[in-house]
C-alpha cells in the first residue's frame, strides 16, 4: 500500500490495553524556515507550499493575508472570490484524502477506490486553474497570479451538477453502514479538558461540540457574504470526527455554487509598496482543513527576516496520544487515521 507515515510510536501495554503512548517524530525535518531567511518577499511561496501537502493553498493564503493586513494593501473583489473558490476546492480534496485513509484502516476496498475517483476530478479542476495538481503557487501579495478563463467556470458548473449525488453515495458507505458504525462507535474519545490544554482546533474540536470556526468567528476574505452552516458533533469519538468532515464537504459545495454566480469582473492584483526598516512580528491565521494554521513573519527591506509556521497537525498528534489510553492494541491504527495528521506539518 503506498501510504507513507514516518512517525514512530513508543507504546506501554498491559495485557493488550494501552497505558501510555509517546510519539517519535522528526524524521522529515528539512529546516525550511531557516533556508528562506534573506529571500525576497514574492519568491518565498514555492518553499512554504510544501509544508501542508494535502491543501497547499491555505499556507499561501495565510502568508499573503498577513502582509496585506499589515501594509494596508486592498485586494480587488474578483481576486477574493477566486481565492475562496480555490480554498474550498482544496478543502474538499483534503477531506476526501482523509476518507481514503480511513477506508484503508477499516479494511474496506470499495470506498477507497470511489473516493480516489472523485478526488481526480477536483485535482483536474485545480490543474486547469493554476497549472499544477498539488502545489498551486497561485496566490500573491495583493491578489492572484493570473486570471481564470471561461473554460474553468464551464468545467466547474458541469462538475457541480453530478457531484452532490456522488458525495451522497460516499456518505452512505460510511455513515449508514452498520459495520462501520459499530466499529467506530465510542472509539478513541477525546475529553474536553484535554482538548483545551492541548489547544486543538478544526474538525477535531468541532466533533466535541464546541462551535468554533475561523471563517465565522474571525472573518477573513469574503466569507461573510456566503450562507453556510458549521457542523458540530456530540461525544468526540471517531464516528463524530468522520461525520463532521463529510458534512463539511457538503457545505463547501454550497459555498462554491453561491460564489460562482456572484463573481464580478475587475482587476486581479494591486501592487503595494513594502517598507525598508525592520518590522515587528506580524501574525495571521486561517482555517486549514486540519485545523487553525498560524503564521509569524517579520520583514526588513523587502526580504524576509524571520518566518515561523504553526501547523495544526502538531497538536493533533498529542491529542491522539491522549485519546488512545484505555483502548486495545488493534484499534490504534484506526484511531490514528481518524485524527487526520499530515506529517510534513509536524516537523517541517
Amino acid at each position, binding site marked *: 500500500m503506498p501510504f507513507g507515515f514516518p512517525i514512530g510510536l513508543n507504546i506501554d501495554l498491559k495485557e493488550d490495553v494501552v497505558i501510555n503512548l509517546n510519539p517519535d517524530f522528526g524524521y*522529515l525535518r528539512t529546516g525550511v524556515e*531557516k533556508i528562506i531567511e534573506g529571500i525576497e518577499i514574492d519568491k518565498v511561496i514555492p518553499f512554504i507550499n510544501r509544508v501542508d501537502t494535502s491543501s497547499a493553498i491555505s499556507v499561501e493564503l495565510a502568508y499573503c493575508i498577513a502582509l496585506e493586513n499589515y501594509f494596508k494593501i486592498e485586494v480587488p473583489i474578483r481576486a477574493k472570490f477566486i481565492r475562496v473558490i480555490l480554498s474550498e476546492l482544496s478543502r474538499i480534496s483534503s477531506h476526501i484524502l482523509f476518507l481514503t485513509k480511513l477506508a484503508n484502516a477499516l479494511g474496506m476496498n470499495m470506498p477507497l477506490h470511489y473516493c480516489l475517483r472523485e478526488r481526480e476530478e477536483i485535482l483536474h479542476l485545480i490543474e486547469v486553474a493554476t497549472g499544477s495538481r498539488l*502545489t498551486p503557487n497561485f496566490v500573491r501579495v495583493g491578489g492572484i497570479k493570473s486570471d481564470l478563463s471561461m473554460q474553468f467556470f464551464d468545467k466547474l458548473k458541469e462538475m457541480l451538477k453530478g457531484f452532490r449525488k456522488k458525495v451522497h453515495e460516499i456518505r452512505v458507505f460510511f455513515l449508514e453502514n452498520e459495520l462501520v458504525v459499530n466499529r467506530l462507535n465510542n472509539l478513541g474519545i477525546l475529553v474536553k479538558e484535554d482538548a483545551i490544554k492541548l489547544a486543538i482546533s478544526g474538525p477535531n474540536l468541532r466533533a466535541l461540540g464546541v462551535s468554533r470556526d475561523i471563517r465565522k468567528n474571525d472573518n477573513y476574505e469574503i466569507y461573510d457574504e456566503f450562507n453556510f452552516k458549521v457542523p458540530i458533533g456530540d461525544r468526540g469519538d471517531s464516528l463524530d470526527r468522520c461525520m463532521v468532515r463529510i458534512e463539511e464537504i457538503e457545505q463547501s459545495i454550497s459555498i462554491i455554487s453561491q460564489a460562482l454566480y456572484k463573481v464580478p469582473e475587475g482587476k486581479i492584483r494591486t501592487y503595494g509598496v513594502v517598507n525598508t526598516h525592520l518590522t515587528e512580528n506580524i501574525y495571521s491565521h486561517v482555517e486549514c482543513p486540519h485545523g487553525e494554521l498560524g503564521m509569524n513573519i517579520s520583514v526588513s527591506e523587502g526580504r524576509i527576516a524571520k518566518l515561523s509556521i504553526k501547523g495544526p497537525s502538531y497538536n493533533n498528534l498529542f491529542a491522539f496520544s491522549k485519546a488512545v489510553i484505555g483502548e486495545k492494541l488493534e484499534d490504534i491504527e484506526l484511531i490514528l487515521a481518524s485524527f487526520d495528521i499530515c506529517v510534513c506539518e509536524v516537523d517541517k
Partner: protein
Amino acid sequence: MLDKPKHLRKIKFLNRLKNWVKLTSINVYCFSSGCCGDEILATYGPIYDLERLGVNFVSSPERADVLMIAGIITKEMKSTLEDLYNSTEDKKVVIAVGSCAINGGPFYKSDYILNGVKEIFNVDLYVPGCPPRPEAIIYSILRYKDRFK
C-alpha cells in the same frame, strides 16, 4: 554428448519462463514520505491504474523485486533505508521518484537532509518532477519492463 542439446534447450526454456514471470508480476515496495507519496497513491487509484500492468504493492521488503523511494530523505532516516536495502533480494531495481530523492529538491541548501538517495545506494531509474505526474510514474514501470523483453 547426446543430451547436450536437450540440456541447452532446458536452460533456454527456464530463462524465458523467468523473464515472463518478471514481466507480468512485479512486486513493488514503496517508501513514501511527503508530497510525492500522494501522487503514487493517485496511480494506485482507478483512473491511472497501475495494477493492470501487473504491479503489486507488497508490505514487506523481503518479498519485493523493486524498491520505489519517494520523498524527503533526512539524515535520521539513513539507517532505516540501509536496513530496507539489505533485506531485499540481491537482484533488485531501485527507482527514485521526485526531485527530493534525486538531488535534494527545493531544500538542497539545508543541513538536515541528504542530497538524494544516491548517497546511500545505487539507483537504476530516475523519475523527475516536483511532484511528477502519475503518467511519469507509469512510464518508469514500462521502462523497467523493457529489460526483460
